[in-house]
């Protein structure tokens, strides 16, 4: 195992951590618009209130780690995907301030306005993250200097848009399970009844994406064909998804949530395995692809960064788990709530 592979894994883990943690924030952000009562809407906001910005840090750190470990990849993707990334930033800004601002006034238009801002920001962010993943998986045109050679509209291909939709479905499912875990009473029962339809929505979109991957994205299917052992992961993935409705029906909400987290982790693992060593696949000329080797920093920097990660990550995990533990259980609105 060399340093480049380790950093490919670490960057993947950071982005997977972001998807799992901020994924439920974004899902809750979309779902809250469909809850009519103001008190119930507040419960949704406060379910993620203490944790959302810690969750967003996973994206910031993932981006920083990508910059440090694979500067070529960071530069190519961020400049090549300029317009969607600017929209993603706008979406994340609206999401952030909607949470902070909503509770500060009682006016109906103010609250409804921020609810819509929260929904739009969360939906757009989820969709654009999916579109980005879709384009990375499918491949984008790169020139011999590894610069992006397409346009904005190259990024809006059907495969990437489908991946965007699937990501929205995934975060909706994940967010609904998180809310089931954090709510009680009538609201709990209502959101609980949404979980199964959302799982079905996700499974259908994921099945279509998988079919499209098998048909059109050869480089990923080739890797899986050469290493059939990885199909075990796909089976685990199916089991993890199937386990969610089972746990929900038995009222074990926390286990259902863990299953959902496992689903996302396995999805990212399959994505990573299908990509490695490529980080941005180049079509039509695969020779211009950016990989974990030609896009990386020097071994010295990767080594220094590994020391930083080995010191930092265990500490981060320790206090993150402690903080989630302190805020465990059902949401109770109090004087400090949003």
């Amino acid at each position: 195992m060399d340093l480049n592979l380790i950093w490919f894994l670490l960057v993947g883990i950071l982005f997977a951590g972001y998807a799992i943690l901020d994924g439920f924030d974004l899902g809750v952000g979309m779902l809250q618009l469909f809850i009519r009562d103001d008190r119930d809407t507040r419960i949704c906001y406060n379910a993620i209130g203490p944790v959302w910005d810690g969750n967003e840090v996973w994206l910031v750190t993932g981006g920083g780690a990508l910059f440090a470990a694979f500067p070529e990849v960071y530069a190519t993707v961020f400049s090549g995907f300029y317009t969607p990334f600017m929209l993603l930033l706008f979406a994340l800004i609206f999401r952030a301030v909607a949470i902070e601002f909503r509770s500060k006034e009682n006016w109906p238009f103010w609250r409804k306005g921020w609810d819509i801002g929260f929904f739009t920001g969360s939906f757009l962010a989820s969709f654009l993250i999916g579109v980005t993943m879709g384009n990375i998986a499918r491949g984008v045109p790169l020139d011999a200097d590894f610069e992006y050679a397409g346009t904005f509209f190259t990024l809006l291909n059907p495969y990437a848009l489908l991946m965007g939709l699937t990501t929205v479905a995934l975060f909706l499912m994940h967010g609904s399970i998180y809310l089931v875990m954090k709510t009680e009473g009538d609201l709990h029962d209502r959101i609980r009844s949404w979980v199964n339809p959302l799982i079905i929505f996700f499974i259908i979109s994921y099945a279509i994406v998988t079919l499209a991957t098998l048909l059109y994205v050869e480089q990923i299917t080739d890797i899986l064909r050469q290493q059939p052992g990885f199909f075990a992961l796909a089976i685990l993935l199916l089991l993890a998804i199937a386990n969610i409705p089972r746990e929900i029906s038995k009222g074990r909400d926390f286990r259902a949530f863990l299953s959902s987290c496992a689903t996302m982790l396995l999805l990212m693992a399959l994505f990573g395995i299908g990509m490695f060593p490529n980080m941005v696949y180049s079509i039509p000329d695969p020779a211009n692809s950016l990989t974990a080797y030609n896009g990386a920093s020097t071994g010295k920097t990767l080594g220094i960064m590994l020391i930083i990660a080995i010191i930092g990550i265990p500490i981060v995990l320790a206090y993150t788990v402690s903080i989630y533990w302190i805020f465990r259980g059902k949401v109770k609105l109090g004087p400090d709530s949003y």
Partner: protein
Amino acid sequence: MDVEILARIQFAFTIAFHYIFPPLSIGLGLALVIMEGLYLKTRDKAFHEMARFWTKVFGLTFAIGVASGIVMEFEFGTNWATYSRFVGDIFGSALAAEGIFAFFLESGFLAILLFGWDKVGKRLHFFSTCMVAFGAHFSAVWIIVANSWQQTPAGSHLEVAGKVVPPDYVPTPGEWEQSRMVIDNFWEVVFNPSTLDRLSHTVIGAWQAGAFLLISVSAFYLLRGRHAGFARRSMKIGLAIAMLSSVLSLLSGHSSAQVVAEHQPSKLAAMEGLHETTTNAPLTLFGWVDEDTGRTIGPKIPGALSILVGGNRETEITGLNDIPADLRPPVQATFQFFHLMVAIGGLLILISFSGGFLWWRGTLWDAHSSLARTYWWVAVFAVFLPQLANQFGWFAAEIGRQPWIVWGFLKTSDGLSKVVSANQVLGSLIGFMLIYGLLFFLFIYLLNKKIQNGPGEASVGTYTEPEWLKNRDS
């Protein structure tokens, strides 16, 4: 407009907006640690009430800081891709370290600071507040390390197409794609020649921003005759931090300027508007740079610049005329922003120590004293001064760095993203202006509302069911 100027305007605009908030997080973070520490020590509920009020203000500034901060990390890649490739081996590490060591810490423990008052004990809450403040300071460390390395690169060398080149080698325009800085020594990068002075100057400036917010809001309450006990206590803490940091700011600013003189002579010449290389160099107190005639008009203290830089009149200071025209920064802007920062710094010393003097004399709290009332009025508006000084200081530092983006190695014009068009940047710039304009308006509105509500029960946001909701149910 071409893509370079648009990209520079966008970066300047987004970073200037963002930089309203982190100094408040750092400065208020320190104040919150003091308040909660005093509460733990004295068990006086008044300190607890204070900490709760200022925590609410902290939460508001922090949220906008987070929202505008993520933009900065994206923009290196979106607008400055060639720069990102060039510096990734070094600059990226500092950003990643900032994420792992600082951002996780402050945003994680922020949950307990904001929402944990009734969920954890006093001591654990105090510990969380310390961690948030510590994280805020630590985030300054890593971003200043990265920026200082851009100003005074160290611990690294240039490689072109994977080969080490001599230090004075200038890559041809076609070679930038294959050029990059490569790390030699991590600690030399971290402790490059300007890190410590610039870090201390920046953090002290942030303390001033926090302290003057405390002073300003307290003075407002004193003028209105509201929350007198709260206002006195907050003002005392604010004045104590302000007096200490305004002096430290002078000292750290002085040593920062000496580092500039040693490593970035063209920036120093522009800051001081010095054209001729000379010993016994004068210090221009304020004035106007006439770029056509190459003269700086304004009152001067003979020899003072040489003495400040080198300790004696014999110290030779490089003037702009000895720097090739294409390597000079924009002189007028650098000169004016630098002088404005210094002038405000002086004003802050005056305001903090006259406040300290009135406090010592006991007149500061006397609502019948016209002296005290005048001081309160000044204090209310003084909140803008450290903010302006922080902004102007950064303008001088970054405009004075031009035309370099990495001093001596890469020019700003060579650092752009090659695949991003002027129209794309114009579109995003307009988007940022609209969104940040809205955010700034709402921030001021909500901050004002919070201050008007005041400390006590009202600040804890006791929720009342809106009328329109009650009506709808019935």
